[in-house]
């Protein structure tokens, strides 16, 4: 399935456009052609925006013709998870409730993509309201794993991961609340980054669990991820939890607030990693982890030794409590956030009710799928009188413990390294009837959301032909460091260059 554009990195494509070797329009057309043939089996896209894409591509080509220097990723095709508002398109969030919802404005990340002249080609499939780990909770259809069509692409950003994994295009955006970027990145054999909480604006992202949600990039290479972070990060006055730039830079002095990124995430990519100190939690090397996955993590650790890095097995006990804490806190926040879907202002409404209450109940009961209802019920329960202290407050305390354990760990180690997912991609249908089994897929990833720190998943090998991902977790604002380590790894290994062949 390989041709000239498939599996090229974003930066290679951009350079080719800037140098006049290819046009952005021809690249966009080629991309739509690839999607036409490949997405019949992958089913990663919910909608395409061909007209808008070709318009942007034409603008880019005009600028090249005029001899202008373009922003770093101008002309490069990108896909966006369908929980980010793009004016003039539908934002369904994978839900029947929002199946006809027209985006009323651009999310801040979308404004940034537009300012930087990236070519948005479509919106990708996802678990309904980003609740799930396999994209099987989409109200519309399941997305398939490009490495094995009988397996799940992971979730909830499964569509965004699968289209990059399948080589339809080099970039996409996802959102990560408990692992929803990293786990699908791992399943689809690509790179996925959850930035530090507050680094990327959530304005225009449909809220799931507001204290945990972060938008981040899917790419093939760490270098592309660094470039895309330059585009999407930075303070946004429209998001009260967005970090001010001086905070992100570790300074106490207030700088001018700008809409541009304050840090160049590419500047440390080539730093030497000799002397790097890695902590490897034994809690994520036990019986719950597939032996093929463990083997690949061991291989990676051996590679690190050869680079002059050191690693030690450590204990981070709170990994054992991340899933219970996460699946109390995230549903609690979701039950509150999803109270806005009442059938009054937008979204699904049945229309024949004689009372307001019946209208609410029908709009929600018939508009939401099973997993969303389950989480609303669970969240409402843990917040209800009599259970608030026993579940919700306790889980918030566990969150403190997790944060403290990470802080103590990062006083001694530069990064924590774990498998991203306990297993290689599982079969479609394998976990759909067992919500708890599905939740356990987030065992390695949820901690970083609870603590707020950045975490990156990159491919580190294959187990029986299926991709395995390694996760690097670092202290707040260490994205550059994580990308640096990943970049050095990708300079001397070839796992990120492997492509699914059919």
């Amino acid at each position, binding site marked *: 399935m390989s041709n000239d554009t498939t599996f090229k990195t974003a930066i290679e494509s951009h350079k080719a456009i800037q140098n006049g070797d290819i046009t952005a329009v021809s690249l966009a057309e080629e991309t739509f052609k690839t999607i036409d043939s490949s997405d019949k089996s992958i089913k990663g896209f919910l909608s395409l925006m061909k007209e808008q894409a070709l318009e942007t591509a034409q603008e880019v080509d005009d600028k090249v013709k005029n001899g202008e220097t373009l922003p770093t990723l101008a002309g490069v095709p990108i896909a966006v998870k369908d929980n980010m508002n793009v004016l003039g398109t539908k934002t369904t969030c994978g839900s029947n409730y929002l199946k*006809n*919802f027209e985006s*009323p*404005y651009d999310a801040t990340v979308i404004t940034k993509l537009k300012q930087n002249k990236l070519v948005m080609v479509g919106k990708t499939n996802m678990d309904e309201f980003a609740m799930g780990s396999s994209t099987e909770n989409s109200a519309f259809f399941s997305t398939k794993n490009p490495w094995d069509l009988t397996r799940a692409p992971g979730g909830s950003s499964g569509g965004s991961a699968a289209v990059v994994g399948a080589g339809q295009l080099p970039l996409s955006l996802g959102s990560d609340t408990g692992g929803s970027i990293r786990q699908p990145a791992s399943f689809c054999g690509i790179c996925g980054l959850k930035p530090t*909480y507050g680094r990327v604006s959530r304005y225009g992202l449909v809220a799931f669990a507001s*204290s945990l949600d972060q938008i981040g990039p899917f790419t093939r290479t760490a270098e592309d991820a660094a470039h895309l972070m330059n585009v999407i990060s930075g*303070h946004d*006055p429209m998001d*009260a*939890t967005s*970090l001010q730039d001086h905070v992100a830079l570790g300074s106490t002095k207030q700088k001018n607030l700008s809409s541009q990124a304050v840090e160049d995430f590419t500047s440390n990519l080539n730093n030497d990693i000799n002397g790097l100190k890695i902590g490897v939690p034994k809690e994520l090397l036990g019986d719950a982890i597939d032996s093929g996955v463990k083997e690949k993590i061991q291989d990676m650790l051996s590679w690190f030794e050869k680079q002059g890095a050191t690693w030690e097995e450590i204990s981070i006990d709170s990994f054992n*409590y991340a*899933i*219970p*804490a996460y*699946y*109390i806190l995230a549903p609690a926040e979701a*039950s509150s956030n999803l109270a806005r879907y*009442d059938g009054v*202002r*937008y*979204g*699904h*409404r049945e*229309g024949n*009710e*004689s*009372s*307001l*209450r*019946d*209208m609410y*109940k*029908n709009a*929600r*009961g*018939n508009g939401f799928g*099973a997993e969303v*209802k*389950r989480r*609303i*019920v*669970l969240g*409402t*329960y843990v917040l*209800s009188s009599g*259970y608030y202290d026993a*579940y919700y*407050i*306790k889980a*918030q*305390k*566990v969150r*403190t413990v997790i*944060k403290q354990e990470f802080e103590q760990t990062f006083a001694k180690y530069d990064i924590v390294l774990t498998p991203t997912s306990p297993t290689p991609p599982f079969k479609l249908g394998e976990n759909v009837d067992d919500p*708890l089994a599905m939740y356990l897929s987030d065992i390695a990833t949820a901690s970083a959301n*609870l*603590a*707020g*720190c950045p975490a990156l998943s990159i491919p580190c090998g294959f187990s029986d032909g299926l991709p395995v991902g390694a996760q690097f977790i670092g202290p707040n604002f260490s994205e550059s460091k994580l990308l640096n380590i990943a970049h050095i790894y990708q300079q001397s290994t070839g796992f990120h260059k492997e492509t699914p062949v059919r």
Partner: protein
Amino acid sequence: MSIEQKDVEKVLKLSELNVSDEEKKELHGQMSRILGYMEKINELDLKDIEPTSYSNTVPTFLRKDEETRTSISLQNNAPHWENNAFGVPSILGG
């Protein structure tokens, strides 16, 4: 703590969700299992620990309290729009 069918009924009422009897039964079983797993956090001694609601330790950023205007159309997505307002079933008496 075990959850009973009547707890499920109560929570469904609080969440304004219409579900079938079959779904209710299924939810009860699943909630019991999931909440059973949540009990794990009781293994930790959390007595003197402060709860965390946001990972950020820096204060949230607030804009100046100035009026801003947007041109967002409310009508486009409204299931029922009438006389420049959202239409809903009658709230008072009938």
